[in-house]
C-alpha cells in the first residue's frame, strides 16, 4: 500500500479528540447517574431488624420482637423520615445535574441522548421522593407501615394508596415521553443503517410493556375508587386488582411474542439470502418459542384467576 493511501486511512485528530471527549463525558455521566435505590420489601425490612436484634443481644431481640408484634410508631416514623430525606436529597442532586445539562445544551456542548438520560434519572428520583414522602405521611398519620393493597383503608382521612398510584401513573407517562424520543433516535439510526430492525423492535416491545403497566395502574386506580365508594368489597377489590395485573402481563407477553415472530421472519429472510448464520437463526427461533411459551403461561395464569370463585 502506498504512502498516500495509508494517509487516507488515518483518523482526523479533531475527530479522535471529540470522540474521546464524548466517551469521557458519557462515562462520568454514568458514574453519577446510578439507578436510584428502591424501597426494600417490608418483610425484608422486618427481617433486617430481627437480624440487627440478634446482634444486639437480649435487649435487641426484645426490641425486634416488639417491632413484629405491635406497632412501634416512633421507630417506623424515624425510618420513613430517613428514607424520605435520602430520596429528596437524591432528587435535589439530579435537579442540579439537570440544570447543568441544560446549560451545556444551550452551548451545544451535550447530546440529545445525554439530555434524555438526565431527564430519565431526574424523573425516577422525583417519583421516588414523592413516594417516600407519602410513606412518611402515612406512617405519621396511622403509625403503621404504608400499604399498597387496593383494599387498604383510608389513613387519617387520606387515600394514600390512590395518591401513590397517581404518582406512579405520572411517572409512567413521563417515561413514555422519554421512550418516544429514544425510539425516534433509534429509527434515525436504523434509516442510516446503524441500527438493526431488531433494536427498533426491542424499543417497541419496551413501549408495549410500558403501556401494559400503565393500563394495569389505571385499572387499579379505578378499582380503588370503586372500593372507596363502597361498590366493591375488600375481597372483590383485591381480586379485580389481581385480574388487572394478570391481564397487563398477558398483553405484554402477547406483544413480546409478536415482536419475536417478526424478528424470526426477518432472520429467516436474511438466512435465505445467505446474510445470517445458522446459529443466529436458531437463536431467533428459540426466542420466538420462549415468547410463545411465556404468552401461553400468562393466558393460563389469567384463566386460573378468572376461575377462582369470587368471595
Amino acid at each position, binding site marked *: *500500500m502506498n504512502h498516500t*493511501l495509508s494517509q*487516507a*486511512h*488515518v*483518523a*482526523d485528530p479533531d*475527530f*479522535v479528540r471529540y*470522540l*474521546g471527549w*464524548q*466517551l*469521557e463525558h*458519557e*462515562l*462520568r455521566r*454514568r*458514574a453519577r447517574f446510578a439507578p436510584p435505590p428502591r424501597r426494600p420489601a417490608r418483610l425484608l425490612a422486618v427481617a433486617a431488624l430481627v437480624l440487627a436484634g440478634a446482634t444486639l443481644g437480649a435487649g435487641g431481640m426484645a426490641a425486634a420482637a416488639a417491632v413484629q408484634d405491635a406497632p412501634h410508631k416512633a421507630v417506623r416514623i424515624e425510618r420513613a423520615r430517613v428514607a424520605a430525606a435520602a430520596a429528596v436529597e437524591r432528587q435535589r442532586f439530579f435537579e442540579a445535574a439537570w440544570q447543568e445539562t441544560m446549560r451545556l445544551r444551550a452551548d451545544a456542548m451535550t447530546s440529545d441522548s445525554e439530555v434524555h438520560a438526565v431527564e430519565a434519572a431526574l424523573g425516577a428520583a422525583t417519583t421516588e421522593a414523592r413516594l417516600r414522602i407519602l410513606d412518611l405521611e402515612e406512617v405519621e398519620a396511622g403509625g403503621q407501615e404504608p400499604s399498597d393493597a387496593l383494599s387498604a383503608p383510608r389513613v387519617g382521612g387520606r387515600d394514600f394508596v390512590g395518591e401513590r398510584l397517581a404518582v406512579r401513573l405520572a411517572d409512567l407517562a413521563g417515561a413514555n415521553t422519554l421512550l418516544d424520543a429514544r425510539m425516534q433516535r433509534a429509527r434515525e*439510526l436504523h434509516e*442510516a*443503517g*446503524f441500527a*438493526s430492525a431488531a433494536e427498533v423492535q426491542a424499543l417497541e416491545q419496551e413501549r408495549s410493556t410500558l403501556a401494559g403497566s400503565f393500563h394495569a395502574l389505571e385499572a387499579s386506580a379505578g378499582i380503588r375508587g370503586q372500593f372507596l365508594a363502597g361498590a366493591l368489597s375488600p375481597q372483590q377489590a383485591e381480586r379485580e386488582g389481581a385480574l388487572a395485573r394478570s391481564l397487563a402481563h398477558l398483553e405484554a407477553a402477547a406483544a413480546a411474542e409478536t415482536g419475536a415472530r417478526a424478528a424470526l421472519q426477518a432472520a429467516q429472510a436474511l438466512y435465505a*439470502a*445467505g*446474510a445470517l*448464520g445458522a446459529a443466529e437463526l436458531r437463536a431467533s427461533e428459540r426466542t420466538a418459542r420462549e415468547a410463545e411459551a411465556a404468552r401461553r403461561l400468562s393466558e393460563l395464569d389469567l384463566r386460573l384467576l378468572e376461575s377462582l370463585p369470587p368471595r
Partner: protein
Amino acid sequence: MSYSVRSERVSPAEDWLDLYRATVGDLYGYVSRRCGGQRALAEDVVQETWLRALASWPSAGTPKDPPAWLKTVARNLLLNHYRRAAPEPLAPERLEQLRDGAAGSDPEAAALLHWGLGRLARGPARLLEAFYLDQRDTASLAAELGLSERAVEGRLRRARLQLQRKLAPRILA
C-alpha cells in the same frame, strides 16, 4: 500490541480512555479501508461502535479481546449500512481491481463488494474479506486456518465464484 484489560464487569473511566486511545487509530483504519476511505462514514461507524461498547461492556463485561470485539461490531455496522441500498453498477475491470486494494480507495467498489459480501454465507464472506480487504495472502490464511495453501486457494476460488454470481446483476455488461 498487547492490551491490559481488567476482567471485572465495570471498567474505570481511565481504563476505558486508555483503551480508546490505544485502539482508535487501528479501528479507524480498519473501517476506512472497508469503505473506500469515506471519512464521514468511517467516523460515524467508529463513533457508533464505541457507543455500543459503552452500552454493552458495563453489563456484559469487557470482552477478552476488545479490539477484536470493536472490529466485529464495526464490520457488522458497515455490512448493515451497505445491505440497505443497491450500489451503482460497476464496470468489470473496476471489480478486478478489488484484489489490488481498490476497495480501500474506491467508495463505489467498496459499496459493491460489501453488498455482495452481505449476501454470502459467513465462511466465504470472511475468507474474501481477508483476501480483498485485509490484503492477506494465501500462505498466511492457510497458517491461520490450519489448511494447505492449495485448500485455501480452492476455497477462495469457490468463494469468488459465489461472489461473482451475487454481483452479476450489478456488473455492467
